[in-house]
């Protein structure tokens, strides 16, 4: 307990001097970067709810501090934590242990370089690289020692004096050390996300977004595991020194190996996702 409180205090010391940026979407990133020498801190809370049977709530907490190294380049560090509540998730798609417990997730880091600005170039483009070390998986909190890297390219096109924002992210993830949480030790995933947000009043954006993930164990494209699409609305509010984004995404399509072909996948996914992001600027 003392160790945890001390660690929490250390995190607070780090983030208390951080400045904030904002993200208009829950699962989509734009091509903007922080101005040089500015800090920001985010707190994400993501709730995944619903399997094909039983009761499932997987709540994921990500505390992220980000720094603008230059006007085009930013870097960040994140702390990942989970809280799982599973009961009776024991069907033909998945068999999770009944759980009601906290799990420490791990650490992530990212770097993002903006090639073109969405504010003055025909289209904004940024390259992003993320990596991390995760001690528990985010489905059921099972033990693992996952290391991953995730390169990504982010596009952003603005219209109507930058009040209509269109973003598209495309990325891939290579992960090692997923056992014993998963059947295979390594996995290749492809991810995509797209969103449109409109500033309908000063300080307010409303948007819709979609994101998808396709997984292939053993880095083998012939070894399909599952793919999923989520879509839903998001609402964003900002003030000069803080902002918040609330997103609801529903699983609109999913397919998983050894799962019924009914347009849903639940082995590693949930029926719906809620995400609250809060960013602070100091």
């Amino acid at each position: 307990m003392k160790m945890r409180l001390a660690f929490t205090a250390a995190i607070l010391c780090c983030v208390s001097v951080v400045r904030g940026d904002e993200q208009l979407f829950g699962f989509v990133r734009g091509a903007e970067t922080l101005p040089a020498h500015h800090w920001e801190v985010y707190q994400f809370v993501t709730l995944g709810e619903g399997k094909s049977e039983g009761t499932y709530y997987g709540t994921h907490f990500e505390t992220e501090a980000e720094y603008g190294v230059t006007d085009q380049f930013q870097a960040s560090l994140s702390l990942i934590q989970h809280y799982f509540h599973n009961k009776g998730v024991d069907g033909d798609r998945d068999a999770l242990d009944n759980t009601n417990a906290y799990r420490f997730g791990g650490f992530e880091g990212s770097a993002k370089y903006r090639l073109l600005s969405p504010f003055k170039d025909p289209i904004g483009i940024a390259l992003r690289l993320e990596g991390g070390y995760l001690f528990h998986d985010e489905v059921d909190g099972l033990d693992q020692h996952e290391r991953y890297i995730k390169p990504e390219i982010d596009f952003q096109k603005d219209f109507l004096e930058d009040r209509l924002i269109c973003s598209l992210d495309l990325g891939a993830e290579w992960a090692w050390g997923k056992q014993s949480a998963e059947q295979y030790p390594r996995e290749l995933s492809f991810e995509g996300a797209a969103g449109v947000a409109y500033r309908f009043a000063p300080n307010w954006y409303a948007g819709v977004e979609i994101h998808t993930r396709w997984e292939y164990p053993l880095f083998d494209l012939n070894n399909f595991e599952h793919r999923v699409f989520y879509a839903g609305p998001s609402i964003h509010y900002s003030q000069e020194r803080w902002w918040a984004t609330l997103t609801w995404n529903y699983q609109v399509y999913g397919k998983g190996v050894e799962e019924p072909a009914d347009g849903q996948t639940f082995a590693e996914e949930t029926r719906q996702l809620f995400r609250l992001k809060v960013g602070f600027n100091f």
Partner: protein
Amino acid sequence: MKSEFVFITLPASALIAPSAFAIQYLSVEQAQRAIFPGKSFTAAPVKLTSVQRKAIEQASGVRVLHDEQQVWRVGGGGWFIVDEVVGKHEFINYAAGLTADGSVKQIEIMDYRETYGGQIRDQKWRAQFVGKTSKSTLKLDSDIKNISGATLSCRHITDGVKRLLAFYEIALKH
């Protein structure tokens, strides 16, 4: 479990959101005195017709957001105009002084409420607009230098001044 919940939520809950505040750097009267010291001002607001609006948009390439423009005639010649452009979150209010022949005398930022980009208040950056007319290019990275890290504000102020110079030609000059 209770301590674990505290561990999870402390990082977020301990971050106290600082109160947001809008900074008004200059009132209308202060901006008038800054641009045209010692002069008198006569309010002469303009309501654009749809024809004028379209002509301004065509001439400047910038959308006209409001039909009504706050304008003052300056004693001894010249115009004082209060305008606003879209910022990242809210509008940025600024004032432009035009000489009697329609060139930019000075611009002043009146209200700025954005998280970043406040460098547009820098006198050197604003001085780039002095002497610009409706025939000027007024394009970021061309005749107006960008401030890295304040790109959105720089571009929108540049577009706003370009629109005001077209407004002068179409609605004020004659």
